[in-house]
């Protein structure tokens, strides 16, 4: 023992005069740190109810509950996360995974209530004192639990693509597809948004598992055109993909294409193993486009003898005659169609209803008729001089190209319109060596064409003149040429809140001469094959049908679908119309079975 050790401990008294450490909680408030993981905040307006928070929560502390206020919002499940503070461990993984970045935490950490059920609350919907709290945990910039960027798709360079009809998009390799498939959060909002309600998360899952056969089987449940849709689908699914909110959406379309590309047409029979039990009933389908062939496929699977009447020499409709082969090669379209035909669907080519066979005959000879003849008549620009020989229709140009005929467009071309047909006609013209100008009445951002089509047409050297209104077609000096008089437009806001309207500025008129003018401002239907009387009975307005719940019409036996029977006029909607009509026809022909099962469901 030494003296120092005996005395040294008495040093403690010195501390008696120091300020105490103790904080006066709860008398004095001690706020949590700026990034404290306190109580949850959800910006319910921004949240889309993807449920990733629910998936990642290891404590099952988050339930997705329906909130009436958000029901039916497009791209929104209508659900919002409800927290159970009896289970939560405040790890904030829900905040980290939140696709919409709507979920965060406040730095508030004390909450007293007499009613324990209060601790089940829907953040952002149920009132809480911390909802507006500006401090608390947020996902840091540069930290993400899934890759934000999609795997880049290899494309033919524009300098090359413009010289040939070779497919522009190269497709993913297996490794790329797996990486891209990994980005999916499996929320299913895409399923609700897809017109055909394709089972997107599951077929993407099958890519991750490497089980592509299962992927193909899943796709055929709702869509017998996967090779086609994997290339040219309007992919509304991707516009709502939550991964795209703060990053780039999952490349759903390319993944679909990847699955199909893993197989040759001859493998389909074995993989899909569709068995058909004939039921002895006959269905006529008019038009072998996506709608008609989709109906044929699903009807055939139910055992109907299906005959498809097609006016052209090949099936596919707009997919074959409207979509150029650099976007959808014929071989891939044939893959889809050949499989449908291989199930025993009879297609009568070069057969025009109303000319070769009367529509009434079909009604008489078949148990039901599905009409899906689409929009095949180019709309008129309704301007003077439109009937000039050098004014061509976009549809005609595309059909000529599809049939291997020279469209005869010359070297300097103007395309009128801003839809996909306009873009396709422009890009096809570039491939025939023409210098192309696209005239569109509104702004580029308002073009109805796919963004990528607009982008690619510009890449390929088409110049777009926006806010240009065609006024008159004028004769040019040479008969091989044509001139167009057009005026610049100003965009004027609609006082009723509609989209801005282009207004012609008469003092800013131009006249340009071209070798031809391709008009592509829209299409109408050709319903010459039905009688006037029937026309009235079917309540057709502006050449379009408004079908009932089961794609049925006001007349017995007649079902409709496709571009002339829906508002979106794209392939995937036509496919769903066909699928749905198949259900409708089956229900119509076997009411007893359906009524029984529907009652059971009730």
């Amino acid at each position, binding site marked *: *023992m*030494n003296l*120092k*050790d*005996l005395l*040294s*401990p008495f*040093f*403690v008294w010195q*501390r008696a005069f120091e300020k105490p*450490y*103790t904080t006066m909680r709860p008398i004095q408030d001690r706020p*949590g*740190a*700026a*990034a*404290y*993981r306190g109580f949850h905040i959800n910006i319910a307006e921004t949240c889309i109810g993807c449920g*990733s928070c629910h*998936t*990642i929560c*290891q404590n099952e502390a988050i339930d997705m509950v329906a909130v009436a206020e958000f029901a039916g919002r497009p791209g929104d499940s209508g659900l919002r996360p409800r927290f159970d503070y009896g289970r939560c*461990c*405040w*790890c*904030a*993984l829900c905040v*980290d*995974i939140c696709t919409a970045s709507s979920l965060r*935490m406040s730095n508030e950490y004390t909450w007293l209530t007499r009613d324990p059920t209060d601790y089940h609350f829907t953040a952002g919907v149920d009132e809480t004192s911390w909802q507006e709290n500006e401090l608390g*945990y947020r996902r*840091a910039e*540069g*930290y*993400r*639990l*899934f*890759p934000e960027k999609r795997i880049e798709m290899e494309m033919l360079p524009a300098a090359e693509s413009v010289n040939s009809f070779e497919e522009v998009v190269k497709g993913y390799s297996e490794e790329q597809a797996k*990486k891209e498939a*990994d*980005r*999916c*959060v*499996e929320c299913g909002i895409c399923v609700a948004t897809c017109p055909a309600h394709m089972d997107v998360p599951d077929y993407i899952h099958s890519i*991750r598992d490497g089980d592509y056969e299962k992927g193909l089987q899943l796709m055929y449940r709702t869509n017998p055109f996967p090779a086609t849709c994997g290339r040219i689908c309007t992919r509304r699914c991707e516009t709502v993909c939550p991964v795209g909110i703060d990053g780039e959406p999952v490349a759903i379309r390319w993944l679909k294409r990847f699955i199909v590309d893993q197989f040759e047409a001859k493998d389909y029979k074995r993989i899909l193993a569709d068995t058909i039990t004939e039921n002895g009933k006959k269905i006529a389908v008019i038009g072998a486009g996506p709608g008609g062939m989709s109906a044929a496929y699903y009807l055939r699977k139910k055992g109907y003898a299906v005959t498809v009447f097609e006016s052209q020499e090949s099936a596919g409709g707009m997919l074959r005659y409207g979509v150029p082969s650099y976007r959808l090669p014929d071989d891939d379209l044939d893959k889809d169609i050949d499989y449908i035909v291989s199930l025993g669907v009879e297609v009568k080519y070069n057969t025009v209803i109303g000319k070769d066979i009367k529509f009434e005959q079909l009604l008489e000879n078949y148990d039901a008729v599905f009409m899906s003849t689409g929009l095949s008549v180019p709309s008129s620009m309704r301007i003077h001089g439109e009937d000039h020989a050098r004014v061509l229709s976009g549809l005609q140009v595309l059909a000529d190209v599809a049939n291997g005929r020279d469209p005869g467009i010359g070297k300097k071309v103007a395309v009128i319109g801003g839809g996909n047909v306009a873009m396709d006609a422009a890009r096809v013209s570039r491939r025939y060596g023409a210098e192309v100008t696209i005239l569109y009445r509104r702004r580029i951002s308002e073009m109805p064409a796919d963004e990528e089509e607009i982008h690619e047409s510009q890449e390929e050297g088409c110049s777009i003149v926006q806010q240009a209104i065609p006024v008159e077609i004028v004769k040019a000096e040479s008969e091989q040429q044509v001139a167009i008089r057009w005026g610049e437009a100003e965009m004027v806001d609609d006082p009723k809140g509609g989209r801005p309207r282009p207004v012609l500025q008469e003092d800013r008129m131009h006249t340009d001469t071209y070798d031809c003018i391709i008009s592509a401002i829209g299409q109408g239907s050709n319903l010459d094959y039905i009688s006037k009387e029937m026309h009235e009975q079917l309540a057709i307005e502006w050449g379009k049908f408004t079908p009932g719940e089961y794609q049925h019409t006001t007349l017995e036996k007649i079902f409709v679908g496709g571009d002339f029977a829906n508002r979106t006029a794209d392939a995937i909607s036509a496919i769903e119309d066909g699928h749905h009509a198949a259900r409708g026809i089956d229900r119509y022909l076997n009411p007893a079975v359906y009524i029984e099962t529907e009652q059971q469901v009730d």
Partner: protein
Amino acid sequence: MSTTTGHSADLDFPQPEPIDMASGKYVKIWQGPQHPGITGNMSLELVLDGDTIIDCKTHVGYLHRGFEKLMEHRTFIQNFTVVCRIAVPEPAFNEYLYAAALENLSGIEAPERAQWIRTLNLEMMRLASFMMWIGGMSAAFGLYTVPNWTTAYRDYVLDLFEEMTGGRIYHMYMVPGGVRAGLPAGFAKRIREVMDGADKLLDQVERVMFNNTVFKARTKGLGIITPDMIDPYGIVGPNARGCEITRDLRKDEPYLVYDQLDFDVVSGSDSDAYERSYLRLQETRQSIDLIRQCLDGMPGDGPFQADMPNMLHWQIPPGQTYVKAECTRGEYGYFMVTDGSEFVRRVHVRGPSYTHAIAVMERLAVGTNIADIAGLMVSLHTYPPEIER
């Protein structure tokens, strides 16, 4: 070829003498599992001859929460929030090792900035843990002033953790691939302030606790660990370094950025309770120094998380790995097996308490006075939760 059964025969493990409890000479008492001390929820079954312990059996299992098994049923990212709970006073080492194991198995490397931040975090953890331990050690010998100082000051370190990670105890900060966020603005300044205060506090602790006749009298010669025990008993960390074994993973197999930091392994000469305690005090000071070095050496910007696959269904290729780090009590390790699925096939957590609190404790307790048993256990610095994963 020889077969190994249990331990090797030539090791000097004391063989229990049969104790005739019916003779009336002995009394059996239990310390724990309900014991108000940081010995925690485990119990010692002690046989006393007078007030001298002649036999000690350890009993564990009161804290068993089945973490290792639980982890086999949760996705990799979900386990990230589980592992911190394995050693309550030192969650960060679990976080780091879990992340490191996954990074090893999946071939991902955390960015440099994340490595510096992780090192800083681990040293702050060491500081906080030692602060609490100093309190426990002095309290075990009746010095109740020091625990009030150090556990209170530890709260300032927890404040730093709160600011850095969003949580005071369970930080859940070292996510696979990096860390969850960079350092908040002005954070370095606040760390330095707290470190300056800690320096001062540790000087005071040394005067009051270590230069103290009573403490010295009771701890010197208590629970001596001899160098020949080190390997047979698997003794690591300060307990081993107390007897001139200079093993420290930070030096021997540097991980994170320890190879860029300047420090020497602290060791003692005679591993009794006093030596081990004093060694820990020095390591606490060393931690403060390392924290300052981290602040000086850390890159100011750059990514703090590697590009990661989708955590919702992260699959890791089949493989196995063992990762280790020097925690306050020595080698902490994670052995992990993956099978290519979204779940870990097997995790084994190796905590130093497993050997220190069971085999070592049973041996050192024999011959000890009953009044020193709590102090002996604290001097081994054990955490029962990590015995029972």
